[in-house]
């Protein structure tokens, strides 16, 4: 695609006005997806894309240009013009390029030949089960996507690294209908492992759970309104931590002082039963990587230990703003975005309680068995997230199903209000959106209880 000498030409042009750092990010990606509605294949698409992003920095000022035209003269001109926005009197010497170092958190068995037909056959197993399971399952929409992406990061400090991602995700969405109401529930497993991950995945068991959930929610009453204890189930329940805390620990907001936790390092920000990590090093996990999109090694970062804030998620620009080292969390959706600090696999660590004991010790409240997504205002810490499958807790027992609940609050308050943490940590995959685009992330947590949170129901 681009030779080392041409990359050096671009770096030279990028530093021609004496910025202090230049970086070239080259991406090459092939992707395949199939989309089904019930048993019909509605579409199948292949995309071949590549592009280059050039970043130039002077202090905390950044210029970013990108293109998918690899003509070296055009790229050099683009870099030269971009350089004009960052001028200084102190020349920066470009370090000699290191030998190319290739890393990957993906687990790929090259002997395993998989085609679109295998994706269709796999989805069909889940679809057939769902449509035959209960007459109330009216429709099943599904898709399978696979991408193989290579990114190369070369910078003026001599970094010359390449990361390979082999990423697959299946999603099956069941729609239950009782003639007057429609309710949906979905599974969406994803991985950096090869196709054997899906053949090992308990597909039928998980689809059955979602069918049961959608059918149950058809007849569920509406959740109550007001402040009450909420027990949040494990796995995707971790979206609460992702939204309520994770985003506000990113240098994107900490570095400009907008995070409510910006000056809280070493202080208690959560109850003492809460410890949390951002671990990009879990091999084969959806949100993992070995080398981040800035060429730094990924990390297994302790964010909170027994309620005390231990670390922030810091990218190169954040490190310049905050006067510290990057933690290997610079990520971007693709070459069209400059990188910024992002989460990877972020979870609340397992505690010592048993999930059943937490329920038994809750007189009245909501059990949020399955969570939807949410969002947060990183300046205020105000968050919201949706409960997809909820139940009332009455007298220490899970009672009738309820729907239509949204949990809202302030991140700093909800973290302090977590009073019970179980031992059943589970991770669940998702996609997170921020200023550097949408990146794959894993959220996770054990079953936990928030002693008081506002439930936005209807009754």
């Amino acid at each position, binding site marked *: 695609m681009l030779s080392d000498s041409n990359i050096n030409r671009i770096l030279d042009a990028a530093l021609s006005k004496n910025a202090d750092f230049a970086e070239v990010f080259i991406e090459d990606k092939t992707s395949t997806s199939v989309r089904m*509605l019930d048993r*019909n*294949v*509605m*579409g*199948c*698409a*292949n*995309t*071949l*894309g*590549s*592009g280059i992003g050039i970043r130039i920095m002077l202090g905390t*000022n*950044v*210029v970013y*240009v990108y*293109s*998918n*035209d690899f003509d070296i003269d055009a790229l050099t001109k683009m870099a030269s013009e*971009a350089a004009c*926005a960052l001028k200084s009197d102190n020349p920066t010497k470009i370090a000699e390029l290191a030998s190319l170092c290739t890393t990957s958190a993906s687990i790929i068995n090259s002997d395993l030949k998989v085609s*679109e*037909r295998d994706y*269709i056959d796999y989805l069909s197993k889940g679809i057939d089960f769902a449509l035959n399971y209960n007459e109330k399952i009216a*429709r099943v929409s599904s898709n399978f996507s696979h991408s193989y992406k290579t990114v190369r990061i070369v910078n003026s400090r001599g970094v010359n690294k390449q990361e390979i991602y082999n990423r697959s995700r299946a999603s099956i969405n069941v*729609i239950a209908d009782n003639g007057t*109401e*429609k*309710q*949906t529930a979905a599974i969406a497993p994803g991985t950096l492992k090869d196709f054997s991950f899906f053949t090992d995945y308990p597909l039928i068991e998980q689809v059955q759970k979602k069918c049961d959930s959608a059918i149950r929610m058809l007849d569920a009453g*509406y959740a109550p*309104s*007001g*402040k009450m204890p909420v027990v949040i189930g494990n796995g995707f329940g971790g979206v609460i931590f992702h939204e309520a805390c994770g985003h506000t620990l990113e240098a994107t907001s900490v570095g*400009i002082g*907008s995070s*409510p936790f910006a000056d809280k390092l070493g202080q208690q920000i959560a109850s003492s039963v809460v410890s949390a990590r951002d671990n990009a090093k879990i091999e084969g996990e959806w949100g993992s990587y070995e080398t981040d999109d800035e060429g730094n090694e990924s990390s297994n970062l302790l964010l909170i230990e027994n309620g005390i804030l231990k670390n922030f998620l810091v990218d190169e620009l954040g490190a310049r703003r905050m006067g510290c080292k990057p933690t290997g969390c610079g990520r971007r959706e693709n070459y*069209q975005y*400059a990188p910024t600090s992002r989460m990877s696999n972020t979870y609340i660590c397992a505690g010592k309680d048993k999930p059943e004991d937490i329920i038994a010790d809750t007189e009245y409240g909501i059990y949020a068995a399955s969570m*939807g*997504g*949410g*969002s947060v205002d990183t*300046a*205020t810490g*105000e968050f*919201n997230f*949706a409960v997809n499958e909820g139940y009332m807790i009455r007298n220490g027992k899970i009672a009738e199903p309820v*729907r*239509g*609940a*949204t949990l*809202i609050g302030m991140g700093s308050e909800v973290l302090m209000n977590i009073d019970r943490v179980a031992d059943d940590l589970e991770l669940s995959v998702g996609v997170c959106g921020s200023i550097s685009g949408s990146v794959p992330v894993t959220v996770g947590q054990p079953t936990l209880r928030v002693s008081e949170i*506002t*439930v*936005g*129901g*209807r*009754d």
Partner: protein
Amino acid sequence: MDINKVNEYLNKLSSAASNSSLDEFQIKYSYEESMGLDIFEGEVSNYENSITQLISLSGKKDGQMGGAATSSLDEEFIPWLIDKTISAIELTNDEDENFFNCDPEHPNLESVQLGGAYDKNTYDKFKEIGLLIEKKLLEADSRIVAVDYLSLNCSRGPAIRRNSLGLNMYTDEDLVTIGAGIRAVENGITKSFGKSWYGQDIDEFDVDEFVNDLVAKAMAKFGGSSVKSGTYDVILHNKVAIKLFGSFLSSFSSYQMCKDLSVLKGKEGSRIASECLTFAEVPMYDKAIFKVPFDDEGVLTTEKNIIENGVFKTALYDIKTQHMTGVKSTGNGFGGIDISNVMIVPDESVPTLEELAGIMGEGILITDISGLHAGLNPISGDFSLLSEGFRVVDGKIGQAVEQITMSGNFFEMINRIGKIGGDVDKTMGSNGEFFAPSIIIKDVAIAGE
């Protein structure tokens, strides 16, 4: 863009596709150049410049359709595009046939809507305006502690669509967008607020109007509190009305109805909303920045009432559902069924928000909602959304309200519209703008304390 190089490539791809086993095919080429910068603490903190292109081939064989795309104009990828398109078709078994389209009376379609001001959008100009916005924001009120983001962007670029039926479509547009968000602190309480502007000519941007509105709305958020959970009459402020209606538009798609994925199935011709609601698609609306004379399938668009005085007049159709249902395409084929320029028709007898509040008397004005991607079910209509706004007491807009949720079912809610306002605002969507005034809704579930 080197149009000669692009045409040469498209001709070669077209020729190769004609000689393949495809029955029909369509080629799309899109090109975009963009420039933008961010201002932070008196400096250009980030400057971006880009050029991107994408070539996609869609093919049809034995009634099935498939496609492939690449970002490279390199001829060596032409066989790859064709092979992948054919292999995609061979895997597809859509029970409903897909169609390309070309209206023999309008095979050549062109819509070039360039403001003519794109070249004004220089780095220096954006920097000057950006620094001025930041300065004015920081000087506007001592409680404003930071401008957390301030971005100015512009983009332009043509799209070309050609198919083997003879369609030859060319579109080109340009746009400037400006967005800013401030953070303010009073007595240890932090509030944030953001605002955006879009247009085709940067010289039409009024810095003072933008700054004053942003600051006023941010400062009004102080002193807020929750309310007791209960049922309230609410005013959905115009931007909120757009967000909420926009989230349920898929239910108006004829395809969703055919697939039994819309609660509006079978309700065309029936009353589905309060009589005061008229929801219209106005593709050539004179106040819209971009007119939409035809859809992506080459069908000429038409003005129509989707809901007229509460009655569901027509669903939205494209060429595929035209063949599925026998109802002519309404010109809503935008790569799936979608809308162009639409509006909730305002009641001009109530020109201001304050007058609408006066009509409501008691209740809550909802000025923002969050969590749309998770807190609503676009099929069932159920929603529960983090909301904020102001109390309305004795017909006057008063103290701020925060940390509440607004819940309900959209399709039930549009039957409880008390009054449509006249204070129209707009938001840019994928294929056009959405215009709406503020709206009174009766008996809405609010969760708070």
